[in-house]
């Protein structure tokens, strides 16, 4: 805005208008979008990992079952914060180390030189020469993967429980009708499972929302980071000096989260009602089919 060029002369409403439309404030507003993008991108990945975990836990093949069990028990054992503290940096280094082996086989110097982690320029991920926004996207991507791994394990727990909760007689009835194991799974077991999985999954969604303030641990400039940075008191060196306003910025965050969780809660209540109704219809069909 034109009037914002000289902030020192501003007062009252125009000061506020200019203050709230600085680039840093736009970053703050956008960071709410970052949270939403993260949870919406994360959800499908979490479901895929969740199914992989749940199905491998049910596998007849012992090593696979063990892997599934370890993965699903992990979240119960280790706090997500601790996990976020070192896994993303480990993933980053692992990717670069693999790229180093592939892209620069001629380099014989070790990757770990004392404290330094040194890979050749071509193995950098992303390359040092790429634009900053690529680095940002990559950082966001690592955060997304870290979130998905942790919450995928939660989902696996829920889905495993739900698959086990489907009454055995339903599956046996389906088999008696001559369905193959595959058909039983896709036509009966999976559709019936949703009713049992839904409470857990809706809860997982809430957990995911409430875990997003930890994004800053993963190096993403999220709303918590900006609320802290903008709210901190500013001296005259800044265009808009002010005292410690963190409490107001965090209030905005609090309201955002309360809104997001209450809207989600309503949505899941509606969905549960819907699924339960359909489920009842399905069982009726099934049982009437049996008796007929």
């Amino acid at each position, binding site marked *: 805005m034109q009037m914002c060029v000289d902030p020192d002369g501003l007062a009252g409403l125009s000061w506020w208008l200019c203050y709230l439309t600085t680039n840093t404030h736009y970053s703050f507003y956008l960071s709410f979008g970052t949270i939403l993008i993260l949870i919406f991108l994360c959800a499908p990945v979490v479901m895929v990992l969740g199914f992989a975990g749940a199905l491998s836990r049910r596998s007849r093949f012992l090593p696979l079952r063990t892997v599934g069990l370890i993965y699903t028990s992990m979240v119960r054992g280790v706090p997500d914060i601790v996990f976020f503290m070192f896994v993303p*940096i480990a993933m*980053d280094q692992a990717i670069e180390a693999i790229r180093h082996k592939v892209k620069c086989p001629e380099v014989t110097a070790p990757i770990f030189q004392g404290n*330094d*982690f040194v890979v050749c320029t071509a193995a950098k991920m992303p390359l040092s020469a790429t634009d*900053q926004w690529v680095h940002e996207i990559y*950082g966001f991507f690592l955060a997304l993967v870290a979130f998905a791994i942790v919450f995928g394990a939660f989902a696996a727990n829920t889905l495993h429980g739900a698959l086990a909760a489907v009454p055995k007689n339903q599956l046996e009835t389906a088999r008696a009708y001559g369905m193959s194991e595959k058909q039983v799974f896709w036509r009966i077991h999976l559709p019936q499972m949703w009713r049992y999985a839904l409470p857990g999954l809706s809860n997982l969604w809430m957990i995911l929302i409430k875990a997003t303030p930890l994004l800053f641990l*993963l190096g993403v400039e999220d709303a918590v980071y900006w609320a802290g940075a903008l709210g*901190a008191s500013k001296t005259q060196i800044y265009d808009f*000096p002010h005292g410690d306003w963190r409490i107001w910025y965090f209030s905005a965050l609090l309201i955002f989260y309360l809104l997001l969780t209450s809207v989600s809660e309503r949505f899941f209540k509606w969905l549960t009602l819907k699924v339960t109704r359909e489920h009842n219809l399905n069982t009726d069909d099934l049982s009437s089919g049996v008796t007929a």
Partner: protein
Amino acid sequence: MRRLIIAAFASAIMTGSVFAASDMQKVRMGTEGAYAPYNFINDKGEIDGFEREVGDKLCELAKLDCTWVKNDWDSIIPNLVSGNYDTIMAGMSITAERDKVIDFTQEYFPPDPSAYVALKGAADKVISGVVAAQKATIQASHVASTKATVVEFATPDETLAAVRSGEADAVLADKSYLEPIVKESNGALIFVGEDIVIGGGIGIGLRESDGELKAKLDVAIASMKKDGSLSKLIAKWFDGKMVKY
């Protein structure tokens, strides 16, 4: 571990863009962005401050194509050694402990005394009471080794908030960071006790395996000292502070 904290708007390529970018070495410069006047995020969302200006000048002299990257203080060294950026310019004093893990160029800022700040009317003895300091700073380890009770906060801002609220009796931090704050507090905050020199001067942190880059930057710093431009920048950002190189 906080990985990269990345500046959304500071992404433009800095000084290097006037030259043909392709044949210049690209360097990623890590900083904290929360330590005015050394480095901070201005209202435009760019990294600004003394170190930004010196860094850009050094890159120009050394013919480097530099990009600025923000990173949280806690993990600023781990992210350097794992290669997420190539230099640290974040008001980091040269200390023996740090020198074991990373390399430093020659100093671009002389040893800055640390000072205690307390509320108006406080006596000098508060420096052996409850003293706030930022986590993982030389000041925090200094206070831990004195008789005082150390209280650690994540950001320098919170340490001052603690003094204002009476949680802590005093705060120990770099004097040049505290000076503008004390000045603008309208007498509410005062310096107490005597200044102490804890760390060495401030240098650019680099990976130990990056000898070539270190040499280039050392030459550039030396030339800025020689022609007096570094002293001028120090005077500009630190309220007329006179340093003779």
